């Protein structure tokens, strides 16, 4: 469904991603593991077009989207949940969801009510300004906001970063149930436990280079690789 081939991405003059290739099939949850600063977020931003690659190709649903603007990528069904939880701080929780609402292709559509029943705590703070939410609430909101665009592919960038264990467990459960609705997910994580529990396959990225790819079972078994690239 999504394929990156030989992607090189820069921030200004600094070369961040080196020849990154990865593939996600429809219905899969694929984990992108790596330490802080390894290039996970840059990979996500490259896919979304926020930091377009200088070289390489990104194909999504059989369409070359390498040069496409971010809003057009989103309209093709890419949902983006950034790592730094950029809620629209001046707007209320409800407004954050309403302004991005878009109907998708499937019959099972997300709307505000559905997001609220998916993340019940959000329903109680509908009128609160998003800038005043807790980390967990903000994370639910950014995921809910992405769901409001009715995506069929979700880019989840470190959804559990900095959250309390209880909230992490709840989010992991909800991501699992998103997978069951047929949503394809690329999940960038530092939290191995969460990623290994959710994903079908995994990639390890380190210093902007993909070092490993394989099934989750292989990755779980390969302690050597995990130690080398993921231990802090």
């Amino acid at each position, binding site marked *: 469904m999504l394929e990156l081939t030989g992607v090189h991405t820069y921030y200004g003059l600094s070369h961040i991603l080196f020849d990154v290739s990865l593939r996600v099939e429809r219905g899969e949850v694929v984990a992108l593991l790596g330490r802080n600063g390894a290039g996970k977020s840059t990979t996500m931003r490259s896919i*979304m077009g*926020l930091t377009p690659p200088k070289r390489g190709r990104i194909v999504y649903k059989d369409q070359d989207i390498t040069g496409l*603007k*971010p*809003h057009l990528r*989103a*309209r093709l069904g890419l949902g*983006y949940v*950034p790592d730094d939880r*950029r809620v*629209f*701080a*001046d*707007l209320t929780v409800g*407004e*954050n969801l*309403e*302004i*991005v609402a*878009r109907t998708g292709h499937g019959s099972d559509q997300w709307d505000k009510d559905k997001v609220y029943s998916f993340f019940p705590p959000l329903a109680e703070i509908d009128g609160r300004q998003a800038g005043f939410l807790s980390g967990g609430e903000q994370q639910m909101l950014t995921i809910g*906001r*992405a769901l409001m*665009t009715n995506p069929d592919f979700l880019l989840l960038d470190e959804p559990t970063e900095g959250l309390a264990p209880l909230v992490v467990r709840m989010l992991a459960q909800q991501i699992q149930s998103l997978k069951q609705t047929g949503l394809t997910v690329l999940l960038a994580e530092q939290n191995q436990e969460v990623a290994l529990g959710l994903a079908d396959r995994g990639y390890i990225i380190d210093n902007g280079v993909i070092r490993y790819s394989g099934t989750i079972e292989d990755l779980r078994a390969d302690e050597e690789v995990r130690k080398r690239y993921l231990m802090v």
Partner: protein
Amino acid sequence: MDSASHITLAALGQQLLVGLSRTTILFIVSSGLSLILGVLRIPNVSHGSLYMIGAFVTYSVATFIGGQTGFWVALAVAPVAVGLLALAVERGIFCHLYEREHLMLLLFTFSLMLVLGDVVKLIWGSDYRSLAAPPMMQGSFSLGGMPFPRYNLFLLILGPLVAVGLWALTNKTKIGKIARAAAVDREMVAAMGINVSWVFAFVFCLGCLMAGLGGALVAPTQNITQGMDHAIIMEAFLIVIIGGLGNMWGALLGAAIFGITDSIGILVWPQFAIVFPYVAVTIVLVFRPKGLLKSTW
């Protein structure tokens, strides 16, 4: 002695109202400037030129139609004309610069100011024009023994209406909410599938329309002339700065400070009246360097 203090008080009240009606025009112009600053993050230097065009178009339309209706038609036509002009400039040239450096955008609005100034000279020449208020708005009514122009009362009533309308547009409509989100994080808005370029077009057009409206409203109160663009743009920038960049209520507050100090200055020390607003601005900035209300920057 009693009568002297009575007159002073009435005169003070009268000047206060004059200042508040001036506030309406300053607010309308600077709220548009503030809106563009807040969302597009660009100081639109050509804002004053669009205000001037609004005034000249109002003059031409009002005198062409004439009579009671002339001015009212012009009041509707001029802001829309200015808004459409801004939209054409934005879609034609400006929108292609959004991904360039910020300086390019600033230089663009600066050159637009020069070009528009010359366009006004070409079309209307360099003579000044003056336009009478429509007949129903002419003359004065008595206010505590002092005459108060009807047209100023009209401005006094219009100001709050425009403020509420603008507030409703930015807080109650979807496009307004999207614009507020884009003001803070345009990248995230784009990543959610919204074409930020069109949001910017809307905001730029709306902001410039406010400049045109300000120009239309000011037309019956002063000479319509070359140079009114520079006068207003300085005032509008100062108002936006003391109010808080991008904050609409800040623009209202700043305009009130500017308008009232100006008119009170005329009463107490006419020769130096022009200094008063600038002293007020200085005082505000000494104590609140970032402006009175929360800036969106």
